[in-house]
Every structure is written in structure tokens, then in C-alpha cells.
């Protein structure tokens, strides 16, 4: 499978037909992938979709059963983790409990035979970068979850990897810390110009941090693209449902809403709740539906409703909207262009 034009830059990570199975389970089932240098790349999918195995294949903890993996043009099949210029931030941080914070960060330098004075200085600099100056002598057990995460980050970055791998980096943090770390990771990635590859099952995390998102399902990549594209134009039913829980419409249902007769997706927040007597916007399709369920979600209410024809729709309407309760009949407008056709059948 060769592209017509040679790529302008060597991909940081390239997968060609990579397969990895565990017994009868095909955890990774023919993945092709090219991650550009300096890219913030997200691998998004439910658990068991193969995203973590792909990360472990890059790190070298797993070896492919078939296919080819390159890191900056270098073939890495058969190379152990300690011979690869990639480093990992582990989901449980994996800090060494018997070493101090400073010794943890200096560990990679120590096994490379760098002298104590140099590695102490470099560890100090790395800890300053993640805003943990002065914590060198603490034990990992004395740190909070957020601080441990930063130590893990400093420990991975201090050995200057070409690619940084992050396994569910924000999974164990509470909401406020998570938002803080999101912008910090993004800032760090931009400042260092490094390639970051991260695995997550949280679509909002993937959409907000990544330059590009690969959506995994059942060991395959079902869609790759910038967050806007993946969100706005889901390629398959799975992507539509998994990323932002879109409404999935059959061909005839799309046709009924004035769109081409093809399987399509419709984002809940695109559906407009019309006040009683309000005019239908230009070009929009009007649907009358009976509300079956309402859930309050802070800024919005998620309204589930069924039309007379049996079409079930979920709409996200402003939380301030009145008259929305189970059993009520509402008027919903679906603007032209909100119904997006999908290709795949998956």
C-alpha cells in the first residue's frame, strides 16, 4: 500500500497492517496509522477496543503478530522497550515506591550511566518544568494524585523521548485537576514540540486536547481526523454514538427529515426546541414528538422524544427551556444540513 506522493515528513509513528492477538481474541486487527512529528494524537475507544494494545505496541511491551511498526523511519519490531526512543506515562503512574521523587525522575539517566551531579541537575530542571521544584526528597507515597502524575511526566520527559506515550493520563484525577492538567499537557507539548500519543476512553478529553483523533472499535480504527471532523462528520454509526452520543438515523428517517436517503447522524445539540407558536426556521424540518425522558445536565437538558412515526430522537436543549417534561408534546426543528450522511455500516 504505497501513497502516490512520498510524504513530505517522516511519520513519528507508522503502523502498517499491524495485528496482535491474545489467544483467539484479535486485540489489534489490521491497523494502519501515521502520526506526524509534533502531533498531539489521541487514540479513543471503549475498553477492549485495542487502543491500549496499540500504545503498548509502540512502547515495545507487546510485539505485533503481523504487520510493521516504524518510529521515525526505524523498524522497531523485536526491539525491547529499553532500546526505543519512546517513553510512557503509565495509567497508575508506576512510580518506584522505594525511591525519592528526585531518584524516580533521575532513574532513566542513572541506567544510562550519567553521573550523579548531572542527573541531579537534570532531574531538578525536569521537576521545575512540571512545577514540582523542591519536592526532590519526598517519597511518592507522600504526594497527591496530581503530583504523582507530574512526577511520572517529568521522569518520562527527562530522558528526551522522540515520542511520549500517555495511557489514560487524566483517568485517575478529579474534574478540576483534570481540566488543569489538560491545558498544562497541551502547553507542555507545544513548548517541547514533541509528539504526544495518548489513549483515552473519554471523548471530551480526546476532542479538547488532540490535534487528531483515531476512533477504535473492535481492534480497528474506524475513523481518523481532526476533532471537529470526527465530531461533525462521524464516519460510522459506532463513531456517531460513541463520540457525543449522536442520533443515528436510517435512510428513510433521514429522508423524512429532508435529507438524502442515506444512513445519517444527527447531533442532539443541533436540534432546536421551538416555543409554542414560534415560526419554523427557514429550511428546517419540523417534527412533533412526545417527550419520554428528560435529564438535567447543568447547562443543558437531554430530552428523549418519540415522533408519531416512531422515530426516537435525543435533543440537547437549553436548561432554561420551559414546558419540557415527560409526556408533553414538543415541536422540534431539525435545521438543514444538521443531518449528516455516514459511509460505513459498522
Amino acid at each position, binding site marked *: 500500500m504505497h501513497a502516490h506522493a512520498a510524504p513530505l515528513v517522516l511519520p513519528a509513528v507508522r503502523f502498517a497492517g499491524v495485528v496482535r492477538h491474545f489467544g483467539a481474541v484479535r486485540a489489534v486487527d489490521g491497523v494502519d496509522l501515521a502520526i506526524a512529528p509534533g502531533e498531539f494524537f489521541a487514540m479513543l475507544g471503549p475498553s477492549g477496543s485495542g487502543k491500549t494494545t496499540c500504545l503498548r505496541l509502540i*512502547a*515495545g*511491551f507487546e510485539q505485533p503478530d503481523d504487520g510493521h511498526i516504524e518510529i521515525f523511519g526505524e523498524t522497531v519490531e523485536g526491539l*525491547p*522497550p*529499553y532500546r526505543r526512543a*519512546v*517513553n*510512557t506515562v*503509565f*495509567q*497508575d503512574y*508506576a*512510580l*518506584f*515506591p*522505594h525511591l525519592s521523587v528526585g531518584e524516580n525522575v533521575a*532513574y*532513566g539517566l*542513572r*541506567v*544510562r550511566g550519567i553521573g550523579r551531579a548531572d542527573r541531579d541537575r537534570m532531574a531538578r530542571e525536569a521537576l521545575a518544568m512540571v512545577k514540582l521544584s523542591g519536592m526532590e526528597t519526598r*517519597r*511518592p*507515597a507522600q504526594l497527591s494524585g496530581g503530583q504523582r502524575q507530574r512526577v511520572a511526566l517529568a*521522569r*518520562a520527559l527527562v*530522558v528526551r523521548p522522540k515520542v511520549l506515550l500517555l495511557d489514560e493520563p487524566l483517568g485517575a484525577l478529579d474534574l478540576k485537576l483534570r481540566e488543569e492538567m489538560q491545558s498544562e499537557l497541551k502547553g507542555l507539548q507545544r513548548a517541547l514540540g514533541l509528539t504526544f500519543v495518548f489513549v483515552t476512553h473519554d471523548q471530551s478529553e480526546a476532542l479538547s486536547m488532540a490535534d487528531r483523533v483515531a476512533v477504535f472499535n473492535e481492534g480497528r480504527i474506524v475513523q481518523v481526523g481532526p476533532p471537529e471532523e470526527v465530531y461533525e462528520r462521524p464516519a460510522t454509526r459506532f463513531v456517531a454514538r460513541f463520540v457525543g452520543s449522536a442520533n443515528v438515523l436510517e435512510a428513510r428517517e433521514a429522508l423524512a427529515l429532508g435529507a438524502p436517503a442515506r444512513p445519517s447522524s444527527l447531533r442532539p445539540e443541533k436540534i432546536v426546541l421551538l416555543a409554542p407558536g414560534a415560526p419554523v426556521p427557514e429550511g428546517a424540518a419540523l417534527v412533533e414528538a412526545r417527550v419520554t425522558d428528560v435529564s438535567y445536565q447543568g447547562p443543558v437538558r437531554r430530552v428523549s422524544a418519540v415522533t408519531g412515526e416512531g422515530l426516537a430522537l435525543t435533543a440537547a436543549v437549553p436548561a432554561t427551556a420551559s414546558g419540557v417534561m415527560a409526556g408533553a408534546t414538543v415541536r422540534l426543528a431539525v435545521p438543514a444540513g444538521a443531518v449528516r450522511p455516514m459511509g460505513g455500516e459498522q
Partner: protein
Amino acid sequence: MTRAPLSLKIAALAGLAFLHIPLLFILLYCFTTEEKSYAFPPPGFTLKWFGVVWGRADIWAAVGLSLKVASIATLLALVLGTLAAGALARARFFGREPISLLFVLPIALPGIVTGIALRQAFGLMEIPFSVWTIVLGHATFCIVVVYNNAVARLRRLSPSLIEASMDLGADAFQTFRLVVLPNIGTALLAGGMLAFALSFDEVIVTTFTAGQQSTLPIWMLSELIRPRQRPVTNVVAVLVILVTFLPILAAYYLTRHGEAVAGSGK
């Protein structure tokens, strides 16, 4: 917190007394002037048995042999037991369960069976009895003790620690030395000490695997049959108590500290 009822306190004290008063009698009869039987109260007190022990070459030979056997068997157990634990703690392979059972079997098996089996095996293979046959006999159960301690600790060790070490550039040997060993060190110390203690006072397997050599327990056993100079055995027993008590105390303080550091994050 509720107070224990009086009956429970008395029972606890009685239990402790039952465990420790015999030890006091050992100490008491070190100093008796009566050498043929243990009469109570002792007819008189003397320090001469300490001098007798000091002068008897057979005692020192037995002590030396016991220390040598226990040291070699413990060392062997530390190396082989740790390797076996490393292989079986996490790996999944065909026959893993039977193999770990086979490892633990020697300690469950009565020593007399192990002893006879080894004696016959050595006989069939025409291996003459020596220090090394004793060491091999002891190693069968010493390995189990080290293995059990190491495997329990290894299973508690997060597998991502080993991956993190490899990820940061350490090869398998560096990972073992810098990450695995420090984290299982106290378990190995505890296992090693227990193995040493088991070997040091082993009688049954030794009886079957020793030739002319007599280890300290064998020497004591043969001494009890002799009617003269009985307090000499008591003096040796007290020395053994002193020698074994100190390392156990040291290990207790060492591991207590280690637990506090390694376990506080859990």
C-alpha cells in the same frame, strides 16, 4: 476498647508461661553441680560447664558444620527460590499450577519421607554422604520458604513498575537490581532467616543424609543418650538461643522499617 476479662488474662499468662518456663529450666541447669540427672532444686551451682564446653572440640566441630550447612543451604535457597518465584509469580504457561505445587510439596511432606527418599536416591546414584548431601537435603525445604516469601511479595509488586523501568532504558538485569530486588529485599531477608533457622536445627532429614558428620542437633541428640556431663548440652542450648535471638531481633527491626516505607503508599 473493652478490657479483657480476668479469665482471659490468666489463660494468656498461663500460655506464655507454658512457652517460656522450659527455657528458664534450660538456663537453670547450665549451672547445676549434678551432672547425671536434672534434680530440682539443683544441689549446687557452678560455672565449670562453660569451661568444659569451651574445651570440647566435638562441640565446635558440630557448631561449625551446622553453620556451614545452614549458610550454604540458605544461599542456594535464596538464589533458586528467587528465580523460581520470578518465573512463577506472574507468567502464565502450561503446567504452571502443578509446578508451583511441586515446589511447595517438600515442606508439606513429612521430613522422614524426604529423608528416606534422598537416602535411597543418593545410594542409587552412588553419591557418598558428605556435607553436600546434607546441604542438598536441607535445600529441599529451604527453597520452599524463600520461594513462598518471594512469590507473595512479587505478586504484590505492580507489574507496571517493571515495565516503567524497561521503558526508561533499564535492561532486565538493571531492572532486577534497581527495582525488583529493593522491593522484595525484606521478603528475601525474612525467607532467608527462616530457611537458616530451619536448617540449623533440622534433625530428621539430616539423620538420613549425613554420613559420619554430626551437625549440632545430631550432636545434642547423641549427647542426651550419654549419662555424663548433661549440663554441657544446656550450655550449648543457651548459646544457640543467644546466637539465634540476635539476628531475629535485627531482622525484626530492619523489616519493620522497610514495611513502613514500602507499605505506606498502599
